[in-house]
């Protein structure tokens, strides 16, 4: 094992983004001809690491050695030239071109006059396809292939570049078990041929079954490099979530009332949500945990009338409702804070007070005209209550900091006086100070009788704030815990229960 050559060496690699340390002093040796697993929670730094290797990001510190040669990967083209290939979750193929045209795009064998030599192109592609045991004609259009087959075509392209390292990001996400088996066979084949495969996945069972070693990232740090044969899933999960020393003690939460404000039964959305059923009590903070892709966002949107194709029963205060538009949802007292405030929340060129009143215009309208004086009064009350730091009410929203923008949108939702408040990652991308202010706001709301559904990818946050936590995976509910029972490992276990 030790006489394997080291193909990539990372020494002290770090990467900062404003306000967050994405990678912290990463030191790792990647061996030739090994299958290396890379695991970690959302935000642990996996994709940042990959993007640095791919030349998409520039590292801020540390050194990278490829094939013993110290280098800086300056661009994706450069990465390719150095023998690194990347296969991401989104297919990187041109759907309307054939397999052979995709694999050899830009490098087609040409005849003397510059015309494409189709015969040679077809032969070379056929060789690759045979190697990968993909029984398809090289002239097949890519959009006719299944996801699994497209992935294999991308592997073929990597091989045609004589790549020594192939990084695969969640390759088994949209393929069947059988196809996964075939993919793993190919990975072993690559390994035998001396190619290194880096396998990034949340599916710990699969990672355990195919890798030689596993690297565990947490909060931008490597917390473990294990030999697969000598570890197990429990240990991986423990390392992924860690015993968080900086986790503050759970604050005293006022217990929720008995009354059911929301009951969801058998909520379904084909391909998205499956048999979702749960209850929400008055004054309760109910957390939803899970990985990216668990479809928690879609669940909230379904409750808010912003998701199509939804079937099932939703009861608000024992009355059956079906909200098919946000307007109806708001009439039933539901407020919603979207996950991506830039794309779906803020009106950047509108003033702070107009951003706050935009969902409650009816109350400020008199014969079609806006009562701007009243708008400013009501907004001022909320700005004060939520401690939104802004030079004035007429400041345009884009000039406020992220945390204050978020508080402005929360103010918008509070103005409609919701009884049920749905929040999707409300503290994402916000500084610590503002985060705690938002926690306090939510706690106060709950104690005033507002029921809150809180989606978050930060387990410590959920544990600190919620009365109960429901875990989702792939659009299904896979676990439910009370505040006392819950801990990070149990939640992570449920979050990775892929079918």
């Amino acid at each position: 094992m030790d006489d394997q050559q080291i193909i990539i060496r990372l020494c002290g690699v770090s990467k900062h983004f404003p306000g967050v340390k994405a990678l912290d002093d990463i030191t790792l040796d990647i061996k030739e001809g090994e299958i290396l697993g890379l695991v970690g929670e959302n935000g642990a730094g996996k994709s940042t690491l990959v993007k640095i290797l791919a030349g998409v990001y520039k590292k801020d510190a540390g050194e990278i050695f490829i094939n013993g040669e110290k280098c800086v990967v300056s661009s994706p083209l450069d990465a390719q030239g150095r023998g690194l290939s990347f296969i991401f979750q989104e297919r990187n193929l041109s759907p309307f071109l054939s397999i052979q045209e995709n694999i050899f795009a830009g490098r087609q064998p040409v005849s003397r006059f510059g015309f494409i030599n189709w015969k040679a192109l077809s032969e070379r592609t056929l060789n690759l396809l045979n190697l990968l045991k993909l029984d398809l004609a090289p002239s097949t259009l890519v959009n006719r292939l299944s996801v699994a087959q497209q992935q294999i075509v991308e592997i073929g392209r990597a091989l045609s570049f004589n790549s020594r390292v192939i990084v695969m990001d969640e390759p088994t996400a949209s393929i069947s078990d059988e196809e996964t088996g075939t993919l793993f066979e190919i990975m072993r084949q690559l390994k035998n041929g001396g190619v290194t495969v880096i396998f990034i996945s949340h599916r710990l069972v699969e990672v355990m079954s195919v890798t030689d070693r596993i690297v565990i990232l947490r909060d931008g740090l490597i917390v473990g490099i294990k030999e697969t044969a000598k570890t197990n899933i429990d240990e991986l999960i423990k390392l992924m979530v860690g015993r968080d020393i900086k986790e503050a003690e759970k604050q005293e939460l006022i217990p929720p009332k008995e009354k059911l404000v929301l009951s969801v039964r058998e909520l379904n959305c084909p391909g998205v949500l499956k048999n979702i059923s749960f209850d929400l009590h008055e004054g309760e903070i109910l957390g939803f945990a899970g990985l990216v892709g668990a479809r928690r966002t879609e669940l909230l949107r379904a409750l808010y009338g912003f998701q199509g194709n939804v079937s099932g029963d939703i009861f608000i205060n024992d009355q059956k409702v079906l909200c098919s538009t946000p307007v109806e949802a708001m009439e039933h007292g539901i407020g919603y804070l979207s996950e991506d405030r830039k794309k779906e929340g803020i009106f950047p060129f509108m003033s702070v007070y107009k951003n706050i009143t935009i969902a409650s215009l009816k109350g400020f309208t008199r014969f079609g005209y806006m009562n701007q004086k009243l708008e400013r009064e009501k907004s001022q009350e909320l700005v004060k209550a939520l401690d939104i730091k802004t030079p004035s009410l007429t400041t345009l929203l884009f000039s406020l900091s992220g945390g204050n923008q978020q508080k402005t949108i929360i103010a918008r939702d509070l103005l409609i006086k919701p009884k049920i408040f749905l929040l999707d990652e409300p503290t994402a991308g916000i500084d610590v100070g503002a985060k705690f202010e938002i926690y306090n706001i939510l706690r106060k709301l709950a104690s005033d009788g507002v029921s809150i559904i809180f989606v978050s990818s930060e387990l410590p946050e959920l544990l600190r704030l919620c009365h109960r936590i429901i875990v989702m995976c792939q659009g299904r509910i896979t676990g439910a815990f009370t505040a006392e029972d819950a801990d990070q490992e149990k939640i992570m276990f449920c979050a990775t229960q892929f079918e």
Partner: protein
Amino acid sequence: MADGIQKDQTARGETILKKILYNEQFGLLVALAVICIIFSVLSPFFFTFENWANIGIQTCIFFVLSCGMTIVILSQGIDLSVASVVALSSVFAARSMIAFNNSIPLAILTSLAIGLFIGLLNGIFVVYAVIEPFLVTLGTMSIARGAALTFAKGTVVPVRNETFVFLFADGSIAKVPLLIIYSAVIFGVIFMILQTTRLGRNFYAVGGNATAAALSGINIKKMKIFSYLISGFLAGFSGLIATGRLSAGLPNYGSGLELDAISATVLGGTSFLGGKGSVVGTIIGALIIAIIDNGLTLMGVTFYFRLIVKGVIIIAAMYWDHVRQVSFSKRF
């Protein structure tokens, strides 16, 4: 502590921002003033009542179309069909006068109805067929132009009615040309809609962030269709003025006016980004374009060269918007 610093930074950002904002419309006014001063030096006729009355009359259609275009671009759309709609409704107004014994009310109704109809077509295709507004209105631009030529049977449709011409071309009240009054009233109405009504607020919301607007309970489909209806309506109204000025419905009228309207709008600070802009800026932008053209005419510059100058202004306006967008995305 950290909050204090934040406050300073945002306060500083606000002062700089104030400067920028004020600069946009203020800067435009300054540019306008400078241009006026230059031309008044270069030509003794520039600052005469007759000249300005003339400017007002000649640019009335341009101003009216620009007001409509402001609303459309503000809502993240664009309307290339306006010039053709002016021609189409002009032809229909003329034909209506002929067919209904010079009934002016019917001519007005016909013209406005045509404008609304094309506006509705635009709105429906953009919203329900989910086609890019640029492509939809490019299509209706052709359709309307072709329809105008068809209904005018390839020639002009004359109008012989003094009242009509008075109302929509020559007329004036207390020496103020009626056309200038129409421009002012329409500007005032659009300004009021955008700045003080819920409807205007909705337009800004749909343009600024359509998804956020939908999540806030605004019917974005309705709003977008409405913006095209307004644009079409104003184009229909402009058709009456075109017929009045020429005493005929001219199917070839106004080719290229849509670009003028877009230029004025963008020059005036309404961004293709959406959600940002004001009809005040549009009017200043329109004035700048109109006055440069007028000044050059007074100086005897040929029509062809004036076209070149106009083109340069358009490119400069578009580039300026691009720079604004880039600097915005950098801060953001």
